[in-house]
């Protein structure tokens, strides 16, 4: 079996580093080239992962790539997907899909007309505790589902994540899509009504973008036999001193039982005289590596990606509806009329 030829387009999103390491760790795939609008960052990454830095996007895409992973700033996903579509058959795009529905729809359309497969990077689907939750729900173990209480907390990431023109929004844009996608995957249902309370600069006085967001929404259809009520805390509410990046938790309450999932609870604690605060050593499965392995398998077997552009668009819709709800102070209905 020949190696899959993969390229990474931009290291603006820090997940690119984890994806690059995953490519190096996985058998039968190769990180052929890197391109980055930030040349210095691209050069450094190419050196770190012992691959070639392409001088321009054109030559990067001329590498006869089997797949490209796009980790640019959210607002640049569209231009990068549109540049790659038709030249590379498989694209893995970092979440969120885009910063506007218009961009997102245009990206899907471009991929459709060029017969390009677009996959979204929602690694939470690959967390084994979340897989266990899904199999329990799909087997009907919880009975009628009533409520999901979820969190995706993090630290304030800084940089372009706090620039609305590049990120499209702060904590709510950053975190909503992960949990919405996981819930859509678990229940096969769609979000139909969204309410949200959102605050800017609440815990980070000078950040000037939303750092706190509490969504309350309903889902209907799929495996659900009644509307599911959901709350989601998307806040950047972990202080800098927190021993890990944040969390993804889901409590699912049904008529037959309740499941509590803390997706990254598999850790040991490190106390060291060389550390100012304790550190968590995560020993659970590497979800980024599993995501990349899944992307590679899709390419190798020429199948439809497990997480589609449409999935990315649906999750983005919810994040945008949350901002609208917070702005207007009332629930918003989806899909938009």
């Amino acid at each position, binding site marked *: 079996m020949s190696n899959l030829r993969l390229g990474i387009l931009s290291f603006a999103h820090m997940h690119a580093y984890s994806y690059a390491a995953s490519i190096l760790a996985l058998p039968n795939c190769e990180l052929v080239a890197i391109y980055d609008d930030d040349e210095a960052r691209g050069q450094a990454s190419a050196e770190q992962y012992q691959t070639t830095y392409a001088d321009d996007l054109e030559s990067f895409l001329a590498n006869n790539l089997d797949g490209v992973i796009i980790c640019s700033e959210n607002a640049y996903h569209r231009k990068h997907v549109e540049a790659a579509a038709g030249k590379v058959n498989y694209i893995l795009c970092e979440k969120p899909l885009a910063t506007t529905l218009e961009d997102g729809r245009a990206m899907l359309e471009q991929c459709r007309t060029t017969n390009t497969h677009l996959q979204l990077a929602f690694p939470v689907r690959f967390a084994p505790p979340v897989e266990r939750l899904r199999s329990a729900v799909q087997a009907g173990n919880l009975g009628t589902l009533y409520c999901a209480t979820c969190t995706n907390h993090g630290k304030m990431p800084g940089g372009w994540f706090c620039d609305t023109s590049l990120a499209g929004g702060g904590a709510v844009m950053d975190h909503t899509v992960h949990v919405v996608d996981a819930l859509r995957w678990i229940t096969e249902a769609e979000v139909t009504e969204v309410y949200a309370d959102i605050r800017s600069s609440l815990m980070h006085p000078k950040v000037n973008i939303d750092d*706190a967001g509490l969504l309350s929404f309903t889902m209907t259809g799929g495996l659900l036999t009644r509307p599911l009520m959901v709350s989601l805390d998307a806040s950047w509410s972990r202080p800098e001193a927190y021993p890990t990046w944040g969390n993804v938790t889901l409590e699912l309450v049904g008529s037959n039982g309740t499941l509590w999932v803390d997706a990254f609870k598999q850790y040991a604690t490190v106390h060291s005289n060389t550390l100012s605060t304790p550190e968590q050593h995560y020993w659970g499965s590497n979800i980024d590596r599993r995501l990349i392995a899944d992307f590679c398998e899709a390419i190798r077997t020429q199948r439809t990606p497990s997480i589609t552009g449409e999935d990315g668009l649906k999750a983005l819709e919810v994040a945008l509806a949350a901002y609208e709800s917070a702005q207007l102070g009332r629930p918003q209905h989806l899909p938009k009329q």
Partner: protein
Amino acid sequence: MKRTGTKRIGVVGAGMMASWHVERWLDLQRLGIAGRGHPVQIAGIFDKNQQRAAELANTYTCPAFTELDGLLAACDIVDVCTPTDQHADVVVSAARVGKDVICEKPMARSLQDAQRMADVCEQAGVRLFIAHVVRFFSQYEGAKAALDAGKLGSPGVIRLSRGGSFPGRWYGDYARAGGVILDLSIHDLDMARWCFGEVTQVFARGLTFDNIPECDHVIINLQFESGALGHVSGSWAYPAGKFVTALEVAGSDGIYEWNGFAPDPVLGSFDAGSDLTSVMNDMASPLAPEDDPYSKELAHALDCITTGAPFRVEPADALATLKLALAATASVKQGTPIRLSEFSPSAADVLDTKVLA
């Protein structure tokens, strides 16, 4: 005239909460909890159900009264442990004969009843303490202390959850208990207000009006006057025997986290077929008697009544928490956010049973 010696406690109601209180009063009497308070004794127990009153009195070797007036005449402090919808009448009766009152949460079933309780107690010059016991749980006091000490910075997002299985009896009767928000989540709504101050807007979803037998579950969004946000979830939908609480207070400089899934200090494992699980539930996270939250709460009330010091929860505070709980319940019913400044439920609204608006 206030007695200065032994305080005689008259317990009204003979249900589960009454037995918890009686046990703690007896602990206070026996242990003199941490040097606080004055000697106490149980003056007796009254319940509309005479047999139940007699049984509880028998268990704790104290008198049972067949008339409320008889108990009121024989005690210094009335401890009201009746179902919610009866609080107001008992409290008003006690106040009118000049007795200080400790009353279980929620303060009342309606805002009108609660206001009447506060007014009558004030006019009668008696003290009224609403037993919001969560403010006396050490892990919750710790959050408030960390916040007050500035360790967490300015208020950000507070998350509180509390859930168990459906309690049955009168608790499950919406007209009497008011659903899971009024009976259970009110603990966390009170804690949220204690930590982050006044709430300006509430939005809630829940099963309260969905006519699902033996089941209620709610998720509540809070906006605080300070700009901070809060989330409270409450459940009467967990499997039998499961009860879980959790607390997280995040601010600009830090976070305080505690949850009931943290490993207990006493863990057990027994052979299949052994019936020691219930024993373990009592052993899992034990505290010294003086640190029991109910003992702390009753000792605090006794202390304040004796010295005239302000309660940790004054009636106006409990009223505001009750109003918030009723507003959250109304939001579940209406499906819209509710601004507290525009919310004034009539007694009829809250007693309206499970008919969707």
